[in-house]
């Protein structure tokens, strides 16, 4: 049984996420195993079986059905939860892409894992990044505590009447999902207080008030719906910040909202990070600062909607920017890099893109040091010819 009160324990992100889901009290959960997400649905099966959570636990036959079950259940007016990774997310993509337009505030955890080919079960963002255009908010977490906290915040953000869009909370596979660290679990009552039971005020399936969802919409009505989805995404920027501030006030953990700045204010060179690598980068920044180098980090927490203004405001004073990506859009560049450069449009800031950690390769201290070193070249070169730099890759000389 999960203690009802606030407590601390050593746990993986997967366990923290499962307990966060228990605290959020979804009425329907769809479960299908896929590495490295599997232990989430295992934990939830136990919590439901032992009475920690009263929920319809649907052991579906595929991820495609997992997302169909939660989408239809959410459309019938109840809070839902599911989790997936990699091929599973790709397999459910068709259904994932329907949820935003139906304005279904579903919460899903994605244990980031490489998408084949080459195959692998280790961390990479090539599973969730292709979903960036699917009208889901995307939040990337750095550690297990943040994974727990953001599941709860995600429900509050998604269900806000200004947003009403689904959210995927993403965390690096294995590095978070299978590594144990101390997590504070908030108490049931205080979570209920922060996140009251789901009360759908918009459309849902109800025989006393028939409505239709997911209809075929011809060109003469189509664009307005999509414009509204875009507007809701933009409004979510404000809601995410509000929920962050509310959470910080109630529970004392402030993640900064859309981005988190670390030693940026007087920095000359800044690395933009995403996910668990931020922790390593933070250490390296401290070491380099001790040596007198003016370096800092901006951690991307929210990728959709993309916090363009916040990025530009945080980075406009620096001399050069490096952007770390644990995924790449082949033939172009890393997805974070493309967004950051877009945010910096209108400045002549040199920006480099560091592709590292693909397929789960370690991103070591010295790789981060290499990135900051590489940024020095931008002082000599007048123009960055190819901003995409593969880090710690055989055959790549730089």
């Amino acid at each position, binding site marked *: 049984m999960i203690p009802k009160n606030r407590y601390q324990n050593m746990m993986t992100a997967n366990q923290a996420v499962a307990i966060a889901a228990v605290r959020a009290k979804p009425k329907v959960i769809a479960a299908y195993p896929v590495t490295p997400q599997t232990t989430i649905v295992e934990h939830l099966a136990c919590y439901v079986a032992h009475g920690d959570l009263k929920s*319809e636990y649907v052991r579906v036959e595929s991820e495609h*059905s997992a997302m*169909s079950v939660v989408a239809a259940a959410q459309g*019938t007016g109840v809070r839902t939860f599911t989790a997936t990774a990699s091929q599973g997310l790709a397999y459910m993509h068709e259904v994932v892409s329907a949820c935003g337009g139906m304005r279904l505030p579903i919460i899903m955890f994605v244990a980031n894992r490489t998408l084949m080919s080459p195959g692998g079960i280790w961390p990479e963002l090539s599973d969730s990044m292709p979903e960036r255009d699917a009208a889901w908010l995307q939040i990337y977490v750095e550690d297990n505590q943040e994974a727990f906290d953001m599941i709860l915040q995600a429900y509050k953000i998604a269900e806000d009447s200004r947003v009403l869009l689904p959210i995927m909370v993403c965390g690096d596979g294995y590095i978070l999902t299978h590594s144990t660290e101390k997590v504070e679990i908030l108490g049931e009552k205080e979570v209920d207080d922060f996140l009251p039971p789901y009360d759908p005020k918009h459309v849902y399936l109800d025989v006393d008030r028939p409505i239709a969802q997911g209809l*075929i919409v011809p060109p003469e009505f189509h664009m307005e719906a999509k414009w509204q989805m875009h507007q809701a995404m933009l409004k979510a920027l404000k809601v995410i910040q509000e929920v962050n501030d509310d959470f910080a006030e109630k529970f004392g953990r402030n993640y900064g909202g859309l981005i988190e700045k670390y030693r940026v204010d007087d920095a000359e060179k800044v690395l933009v990070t995403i996910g668990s690598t931020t922790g390593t980068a933070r250490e390296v920044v401290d070491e380099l600062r001790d040596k007198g180098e003016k370096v800092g980090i901006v951690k991307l927490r929210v990728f959709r909607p993309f916090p363009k203004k916040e990025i530009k405001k945080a980075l406009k004073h620096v001399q050069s920017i490096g952007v770390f990506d644990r995924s790449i859009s082949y033939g172009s560049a890393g997805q974070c890099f493309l967004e950051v450069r877009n945010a910096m449009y209108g400045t002549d800031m040199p920006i480099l893109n560091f592709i590292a950690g693909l397929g789960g390769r370690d991103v070591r201290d010295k790789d981060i040091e290499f990135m900051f070193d590489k940024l020095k070249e931008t002082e000599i070169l007048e123009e960055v010819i190819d901003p995409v730099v593969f880090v710690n890759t055989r055959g790549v000389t730089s």
Partner: protein
Amino acid sequence: MKLKDLPDESPYTPGDKACDGCMAANIAINVMRVLGRKTIVSVPPCCMSVFAGIFPAINWEVPYFHMQFANLASTISGISRALKAQGKDDVIVVGFGGDGGTADMGLQALSGAAHRDENIIYICYNNEAYENTGVQASGSSPFGSWSSTTPVTNGGSGNEYFPKDIPRILIAHNSTYVATAATSHIQDFINKVEKAKNLRGFRYIEVLSVCPPGWKVPTDSGPHLVEEAVNSGYWLLFEYEKGHLTINEEPKFEGLRDFLSKQGRFESLTEDQYQALDTFYKQRWKKIQGLSLNNDI
């Protein structure tokens, strides 16, 4: 319930955009007359989603959920579970799917829902091809039939495969209720929908649905053709309930050649193909009959 006692009005309203002589609309009207207004409907992409589900003029006066091609069974499972979680035990959840979405793409989700005995009614209106996209052969299309992806040349061509037997697949899942129906045998059809309505668990009814453009038949020929399909053994009427199989109508095995010859899609059928069809339908009947031997197990 007798046909004459059913309410005249159906929660599936008149004025849809179905082709002349489409039997799928007729099936929806009658199923909904039986199920009534305390029903939630889902339709995947198929003829019915197009002729009755395009914004802003739709033909459903009950809550309606349109999802994707491969997930009708899992979609209605999600609706059903959410209703259960809310304690709404008296609301019926029904899905109407075509044969392509049922026998091909949706088979995985259908199998999962049957396996879990989800509390849903699944109506498959089987028009024996992907009619909505312009008549392409599906896993339910008859052997030897023309479609736009099984063209006919000079004999011996058309569809090279025999149709999948979805009811038998679902019986193999030990489903709560599996039935076949025909609009020609309307009282039998209504009885089956009513039976499904009053049961709990996974319920599947497959109804033969004539598609005049796809079958290349006159728009007023549907009802007679379905009757001939039943008489000739081309379409069997049976139901399987809690392990017990009942044959509702013994086929006479009369008039198969006549039945096929009335349809443009069989225009190029060779004698060899006809013989293969004749054998196939007789064997299928024996297989279904054989299932009833297990009734006492």
